């Protein structure tokens, strides 16, 4: 699984839309659509700023849903956001709206695995993508390996988005432990920025997601973004 994260409607909807098309052409097979939140505690400076800019420019769940309804490409789409954005919409309503758009699952940065029940109890019915981290215990990993839908998101570094991709031995051990047992793909994210990172990610996991670097390249323009996508995926 080769995934790319982009902030919806950023820098604007036209460029975002074009970037999605370019990403698919270059070989990405799934897209995480970020719905910006004012207080993104899992994000580093670059994505925090992008979220704030997007919000100032009027991006909201209505405009993101409009874009999702119009999407006709072939990538699998997941939504990535924060709990309050979904809560404020109504958890049942928003899962109905996402389901109509063909969304395969939702990644909620501040909804840890043990609070999934809260979303479900309030009517949320799409797959919630669970997280593994370098801090997960082997017990946590055992529990995670029972996941039946979507994928498992392995947050590969202790830190916010935009850090560097480097896994210590203990983390590698956890990753391979989980991968051996899991019934769904294990995808690593956080800190991947170049072809070399992708290569080492794919040795350890079933897939990867790039975020910060993708948004940074798109800020430079669609040509930079295209060239970067090509070189990044040249190793797959």
């Amino acid at each position: 699984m080769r995934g790319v994260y982009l902030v919806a409607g950023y820098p604007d909807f036209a460029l975002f839309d074009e970037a999605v098309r370019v990403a698919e052409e270059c070989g990405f097979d799934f897209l995480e659509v970020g719905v910006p939140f004012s207080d993104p505690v899992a994000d580093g400076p670059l994505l925090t700023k992008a979220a704030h800019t997007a919000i100032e420019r009027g991006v909201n769940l209505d405009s993101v849903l409009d874009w999702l309804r119009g999407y006709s490409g072939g990538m699998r789409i997941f939504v990535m956001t924060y709990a309050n954005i979904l809560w404020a919409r109504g958890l049942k309503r928003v899962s109905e709206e996402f389901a109509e758009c063909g969304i395969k699952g939702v990644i909620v940065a501040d909804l840890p695995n043990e609070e999934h029940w809260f979303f479900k109890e309030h009517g949320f019915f799409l797959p919630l993508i669970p997280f593994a981290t370098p801090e997960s215990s082997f017990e946590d990993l055992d529990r995670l390996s029972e996941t039946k839908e979507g994928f498992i998101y392995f947050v590969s570094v202790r830190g916010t988005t935009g850090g560097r991709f480097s896994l210590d031995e203990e983390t590698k051990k956890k990753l391979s432990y989980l991968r051996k047992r899991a019934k769904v793909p294990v995808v690593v994210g956080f800190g991947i920025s170049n072809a070399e990172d992708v290569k080492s990610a794919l040795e350890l996991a079933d897939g990867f997601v790039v975020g910060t670097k993708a948004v940074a390249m798109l800020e430079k323009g669609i040509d930079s973004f295209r060239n970067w996508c090509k070189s990044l995926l040249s190793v797959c």
Partner: protein
Amino acid sequence: MKGFYGRFGGRFVPETLIPALRQLEEAFEAFKRDSKAQEELKELLERYAGRPTPIYYAKRMSEAYGFELYLKREDLLHTGAHKINNTLGQAILTRFMGKSRVVAETGAGQHGVATATVCALLGLECVIYMGKVDAERQRINVERMKLLGAEVKVVEEGSQTLKDAINVALKDWVRNVRTTHYLLGSVVGPHPFPEVVAYFQSVIGREARSYFEKAGFLPDVVVACVGGGSNAIGIFRGFIDADCQLIGVEAGGLSDEPGQHARTLGLGRPGILHGAFSYLLQDEYGQVQKVHSISAGLDYPGVGPEHAFLKESNRVRYEFCRDEDALFAFRELSRLEGIIPALESAHAIGFLLKNASEFKGKRVLVNLSGRGDKDLGIVLGGVS
């Protein structure tokens, strides 16, 4: 449900922090079973921080306004506010967990100073995050933290106030979770923080309750200002089972227009911020709203989950006090009693003065959560 007050609370944080929260929970339980550690905290509270604090009957204010006003003098504590009750307790928990580095957020700077103080006392590395707006309006406290050996990091993202300081402190914690304890300063955040902070602050209510029991009567009304809600929970817990009216006072700012106040419980809706499901000032899409208060410690769009529960169960009534009424109370208490209150605490007094007729003849206990030296710049210089 564990970690919830009624339907409010929880642990809405990135997965990476979950083990650290479990570890804190274990340290907290171990502390509660450890009589030696409790004795150590008691010693520190008495000999270092200056507990117990007195209850003072404010005679001239009472005569001027027609009710009996009692003040719980948390302003007399070392570092000048109730915040040190919690920082001393959590510093001991930090040691229990074998961690050597502490990060904290601060609004008014009182929690930052109280954190820097205990870190100096126990030899812990200390980093304080403070919004740029707050660092400017509470400059004296920035200097105090630096003197105490803390590194003060000024936060320039978002609204550059308490909310953003918490965001950045949480991010630091995610990066350094193995070595670092996040010493949260109010009854907010993910479980078990609201309970840990309430536990350490409830000494306020216990002392106050025992004072009144000895005096042979109880107050009719107990009033406290509410930012995140720690001084309020601290005093309310002493009276929650008694026949006393409890009133929490939020910052009314300039008006009820969005962005001009911090009336989270008064005008917000349930939502999720900083790890808890509680009340939140937010727009229709769930973006956190801008807030305003003249007081940096109350300038916050969220509130502790226990307050959300106490509101919905109608045990506590939540009111507000505007900037100008807090400023009036600030001057009035100084003039009539020789006590300069923190602008935060002045909100509790200001609400009473504004509504004096409602409390005519009643015995009113106010938690005077801090002293006001830090606020002279705002009050005299018009900084806000």
